[in-house]
Structure formats: structure tokens, C-alpha cells
């Protein structure tokens, strides 16, 4: 959500990401607990499984290219055939002189999903190597709301039902890759729990004897 503007000054203090309340770090390393002031979830019951997240982010990256370039749906309309992929619909919007809509679709479906998964991949790889994820984690979080493949899937369902009456449709490989991409992303984001990540980073910072600067 929104980032806090004041950097934490003292290393042992824990700062709520939503209301910037400073708290003492909890006694137990893990647990489901919330910010007493704003109710944001600050603690996770689960340990961060970096290896699983790493594998899922890599899978999502591999799925990305076929998902955007292969045909999603084939349509046969009164004997005239056609197909559409995400990239071809962006191209169509450009040619119809709707450059702004084309840009929005391009950013939310073609650019952001792999960029965000790449950021997660690098952040997890760095964490595993014992280092700091640095900016990569921030980029991953900023990108989360701008990657919208799951919304596009619902849109595809609605578009095909609107067509359904006067055309025969066949699902393409691109659609199955897209569904797999959405599911992989969901699991990866679920496992890369922000609360667990924050607490892990604070622990690393404390171990390094750092003064809390990012």
C-alpha cells in the first residue's frame, strides 16, 4: 500500500507500513498479528519460502511470452476465420488510433507482469544468497497493482460471451498459458507474504548491526 515517508531511525523499532506507528519488535519470530492502531497485518504465521517463490517467479516468466504472443481465441464467423492474441489486440488498438488505450493495455498486460516477476525473482535470489533485495523488492510491490492478467481473463470471458451468439469460438494455446500465468502469479504473491518479507528484512538488518537505513 502507500509507503511511509519517514525512514526508521532506530534499528530495533518496527514501523507499520500503513500508519507509520513505531512498535517494539515481537518476542516470537513468527505469528499472525496486526498493527494495534490501523489494523494492518504485520506478522505472518508462515516462514518465507524463498526457493518456492523463486521457482514460481521463474515459471511465470517462462509462461509470459507464449501468453502474450500466441492466439487466445480463434473465431469463425459466417465462414470468416480470425484469431487474437494480447499483442495483436494492442496492435489493432494502435491502428484504430487509440494509442492511449493501446499503451494502457500494453503496460498492464505485456510490460508489468514480467517486470514484476523479474523483480521478485532477483529479490528472492538475493535473499537466498544472504544479501539484501534492495530496490528490487520495492519495484515488485509497486508493480503489483499494475499487472492485471487476472482482470484480462475475466474480460476475455465477457468478450467471448458477447460474441457467443453469432460466432463459433475455439480456445487457443495463449489462453491456457495466460491462465497458468495467473495461477502461478497468485501462488507466488501469496507465498511472498509482505509481512513475512518485512520482518525478515528487519531481522537481517539487525543482524548486520545496521542503523536501519534502507
Amino acid at each position: 500500500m502507500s509507503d511511509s515517508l519517514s525512514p526508521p531511525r532506530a534499528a530495533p523499532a518496527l514501523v507499520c507500513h500503513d500508519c507509520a506507528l513505531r512498535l517494539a519488535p515481537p518476542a516470537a519470530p513468527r505469528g499472525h498479528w496486526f498493527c494495534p492502531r490501523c489494523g494492518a497485518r504485520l506478522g505472518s504465521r508462515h516462514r518465507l519460502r524463498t526457493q518456492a517463490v523463486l521457482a514460481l517467479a521463474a515459471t511465470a516468466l517462462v509462461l509470459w511470452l507464449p501468453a502474450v504472443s500466441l492466439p487466445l481465441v480463434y473465431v469463425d464467423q459466417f465462414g470468416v476465420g480470425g484469431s487474437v492474441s494480447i499483442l495483436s489486440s494492442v496492435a489493432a488498438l494502435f491502428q484504430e488510433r487509440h494509442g492511449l488505450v493501446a499503451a494502457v493495455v500494453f503496460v498492464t498486460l505485456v510490460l508489468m507482469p514480467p517486470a514484476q516477476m523479474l523483480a521478485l525473482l532477483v529479490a528472492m535470489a538475493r535473499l537466498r544468497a544472504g544479501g539484501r533485495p534492495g530496490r528490487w523488492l520495492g519495484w515488485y510491490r509497486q508493480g503489483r497493482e499494475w499487472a492485471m492478467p487476472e482482470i484480462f481473463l475475466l474480460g476475455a470471458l465477457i468478450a467471448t460471451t458477447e460474441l457467443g451468439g453469432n460466432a463459433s469460438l475455439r480456445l487457443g494455446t495463449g489462453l491456457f498459458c495466460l491462465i497458468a500465468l495467473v495461477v502461478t502469479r497468485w501462488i507466488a504473491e501469496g507465498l511472498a507474504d509482505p509481512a513475512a518479507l518485512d520482518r525478515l528484512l528487519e531481522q537481517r538488518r539487525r543482524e548486520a548491526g545496521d542503523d536501519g537505513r534502507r
Partner: protein
Amino acid sequence: MTAAVESPKADRRRSLAWALLVAAAVWLVPANLLPIMTLETLGREQAGTIADGVLRLLQSGMPGLALVVFTASLLIPILKILVLAVIYWRTPAHPRPRGAIRAYRLVYWIGRWSMLDVFVVALLAGLMRFGVLARAVPEPGITAFALAVVLTMLSAHAFVTSQLWESDHGSGANP
């Protein structure tokens, strides 16, 4: 004590959030009044607004999907702008910050689903480009709608949630 330091920056971010929200509200007017897509079937042209799309789904016997599109395209954009406006209006030192942040979190994550209609138009435009008997052509309304949704998202992003508590009981809670 931190409140005094971060106040100018938080103020600037709040002005930015307001500006983006007003721009989004302005774009929402043509987005709902102008047609978003023209469907040409068998030589019959039919330009439709967002509301027409909902009605079309309802008439073709899909009340569930019609409800989804109605919520995502008509209800949520307006609701999100109203909720954010009320939250910005009463900030800083919001009288009920806990309720405010709950509402903010809700509209923050639901707002992006408004992009649904943009994707429907994009897919139909890409699929029915070369159709001889049936064609789908995007219309200016969809640009206005996409802009309204993106601007609302940017506005929510610019808002600093911690200032809901500023100069309230926040300083007392800090050690």
C-alpha cells in the same frame, strides 16, 4: 515529532492526490456518456456506451456477467472517487482513521478491476478487425474511461496513509 518533519512532503502528496482525483472525476463524465465501442453486424451499426454493454449482457440472458460488468464499470469507479474524496477531505487528523483506512484499503484493491471494460473492448477490437459481416470498432469513450481508471489508481497511490493519524493521537502513540 516526526509529524513536523514530514508534514510539507505529505501536504504536497495530498495536493497531488487531490489533483489526480479531480482529473479522474472529470474524465469519468465523457467515459460514461460517449460510446465506447461500435458493433457492426450484418451492416447494422450499433454504438454503445458502458451502460449499453450491461444491458446487452442482460438481454442475452447473462444476468451474472451483467452484474459483474455493472459493478466493475459503473459502480466501482464512481464509488472509489467518492470514497477517496471523503477520506482526503477529512485528512489530516481524520476523526475516524481506522474506518478510513479500512475503506481506503478496500477501494485501493477493488479499483483496478474497473479496467475490465478496457480489456473487453481491446479483445473485441483485435478479434473482429477483419470481419466482413461483423466488426468491432473502439470509440473515444474507452480512452476517457481508461484515463479515469488510471488517474484514480495514481491518486490512491499518491496518498500517504500515515497522515490519517497526523497531529491526532499519533504523537502520543509514538515512543
